[in-house]
């Protein structure tokens, strides 16, 4: 189509970021625990900004930054006794609360949680409920609060919202939330079945003539359109998924010739691979947290 070709070469148009990574290469993740001393456990997670952002900083072509990268903070309060007014619960009462900072996305979010934030909270709760051994803490509550400081884009900012306008950025945000919450729970010394990590895979199409392909950890700003994406919360040691969220039509994906999987199966496997990658970072962060704790126990400086 001619309109597609003119899009990039249009005079004055800012250039669209391109994916520089291999299709199975993840962005680097920064994950640190214990930054919020008043909470019983906390973590901070950041995704590596895309190279387009660095390029735009050195040679700016537009006032608007080309892409954004996820930054979020997670706090865990508890396990603590339930309020007296609460009814008896034989299990740990898990409450998850995901909130975008008003300045997190390109469009301002209000202070009251909207439907998408509540939806994220429910997804996160599903992911964590499968990992926490709930009957170990009867009559207790655990509050997990996540503040998203910078969100992922749903598409490149220069594109008009069109038929592929679904909130794809939310899926990356959810994967980040799962990984960060898992680190914070471990930092709060709450024992779990395993460290659960989040991963995203997507079937993307770059331009109208390119065949749709599978990429891990996609940045929605780097692709023309995303056909389908999948988030999982994955426990490597048990090879189990506690949360699965797949959306979009992945039946048109072109996998390699000897690959007989359906689009959705390939997506699921891709997301699990991405989660395995995130798990290595998570394990390292939790080890750091444990070392810090051991240092404290041996009479080190109070944090």
């Amino acid at each position, binding site marked *: 189509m001619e309109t597609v070709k003119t899009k990039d070469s249009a005079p004055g148009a800012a250039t669209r970021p391109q994916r520089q990574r291999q299709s199975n290469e993840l962005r680097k993740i920064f994950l640190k625990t214990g930054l919020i001393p008043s909470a019983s456990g906390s973590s901070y997670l950041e995704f590596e900004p895309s190279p387009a952002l660095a390029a735009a900083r050195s040679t700016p072509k537009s006032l608007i930054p080309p892409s954004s990268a996820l930054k979020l903070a997670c706090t865990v309060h508890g396990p603590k006794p339930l309020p007296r007014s609460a009814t008896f619960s034989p*299990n740990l009462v898990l409450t998850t609360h995901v909130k975008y900072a008003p300045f997190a996305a390109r469009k301002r979010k209000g202070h009251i949680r909207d439907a*998408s934030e509540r939806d994220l909270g429910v997804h996160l709760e599903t992911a964590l409920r499968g990992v926490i051994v*709930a009957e170990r803490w009867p009559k207790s509550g655990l509050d997990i609060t996540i503040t998203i400081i910078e969100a992922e884009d749903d598409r490149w900012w*220069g594109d008009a919202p069109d*038929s592929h*306008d679904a909130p794809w950025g939310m899926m990356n945000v959810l994967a980040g939330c799962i990984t960060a919450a898992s680190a914070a729970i471990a930092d709060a010394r709450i024992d779990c079945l395993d460290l659960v990590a989040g991963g995203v895979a997507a079937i993307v199409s770059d331009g109208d003539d390119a065949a749709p392909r599978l990429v891990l950890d996609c940045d929605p700003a780097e692709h023309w359109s995303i056909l389908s994406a999948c988030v999982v919360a*994955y426990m490597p040691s048990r090879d189990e998924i506690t949360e699965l969220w797949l*959306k979009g*039509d992945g039946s048109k994906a072109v996998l390699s010739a000897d690959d007989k999987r359906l689009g959705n199966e390939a997506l699921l496997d891709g997301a699990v691979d991405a989660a395995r990658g995130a798990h290595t970072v998570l394990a390292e962060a939790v080890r750091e947290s444990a070392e810090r704790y051991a240092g404290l126990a041996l009479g080190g400086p109070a944090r």
Partner: protein
Amino acid sequence: MSAQRQASSASQTPHISPAELSYLWSSLALPNNPIRPDGRSPTQFRPLSAETDILPGTNGSARVGFADGTQAIVGVKAEVEKTVAAADVSSLSQRAQEQFGENQDGEGKSSATTTGHGSWVQMSIEIPGYRDDDALPVFLSEMMREPLVESVSSGGNADGEMAGGLKGRLVINRRWHWRLYIDVLLLSQPLSYPLPLLSLTTHLALLSTKLPKLKSLGEEDPFFDDDWDAAEYLYPRSQSRLASALQLRPPVTLLVISVGENVIFDPSRDEIAVADTLLAISVARDGGSDALKVLSIRTVDPPSRLTQPGMPNAENPASLESAAVAEQAVNGEEIPGVWRPRRGGVKRNTVAKMVKLVLQKGGVGEEVLEGLEGVEVG
């Protein structure tokens, strides 16, 4: 309050004793041949009654009732709304070109008119006993809206009218579009997880939805035929039996559970209470071919994780114990007949199996869609 908070994403935790849970689980998990409390086969649905076009004040409506007394009504209303100019860098420059040279019109327009916006479809769900910002209604409406706006027909077979899926159909011209309000009302208490009921009702209501026939052409301000008999269906249909199978239809969301090795469809409340996994799978017919495709999959938090554990005799001071059993219990092993809340997640091959049972030819998905076709619409 906390009990309700706990049960946010799935339905309420049922009040069944651990012994009953264990009995139910083991009869549902019997290899290859699960025994369900109501005697259905694993893929059999509960009988339901359905009617459409029941509310004269709406563009389309439907009522579905299950035999257990749960009922839902869906009303679809459409409004004409002005499209806010899309802030697209490329279209801005395109517009500038058009103003100067007016060189390209055909292609630019066609691409602009086939796309719509997902926010033009609004869905609200009212469930008695829940506030409208509680997790369950929010989760349900997102779960049902997602595949609806997602279902872009990709096959070339679906003629121009439905090219961009539902969103494309809502575009009137470049400046005007339809906004669709889908209001779902659950009339009874949610006895089981209400998703299948609400999804089927929404499907039927959308099938019966009609929009007034457009009289104006192209980029004029929209002007409609005031004859309601001339109105066109939102999801266009043709007379021939063969072609109707290939037409775009709204997606359906099915609730599937796995218990042990078995996969069970349309679970009742008690069956959900013991499910190891609870998945909501949305399917629709592919535009070009007869096959089905998955539009979305979501895990729903199974209430079995929140159930109360049973106590083995060995730990019960009221009964006599044997040393061997006591040792087993201390090791935290599973004792047959004693209920333990489920832990952990779902294996990948279980998910694949569940999806395959929905998608395969002559499988459950096709059966449900055919059953819905059979409901007299209009």
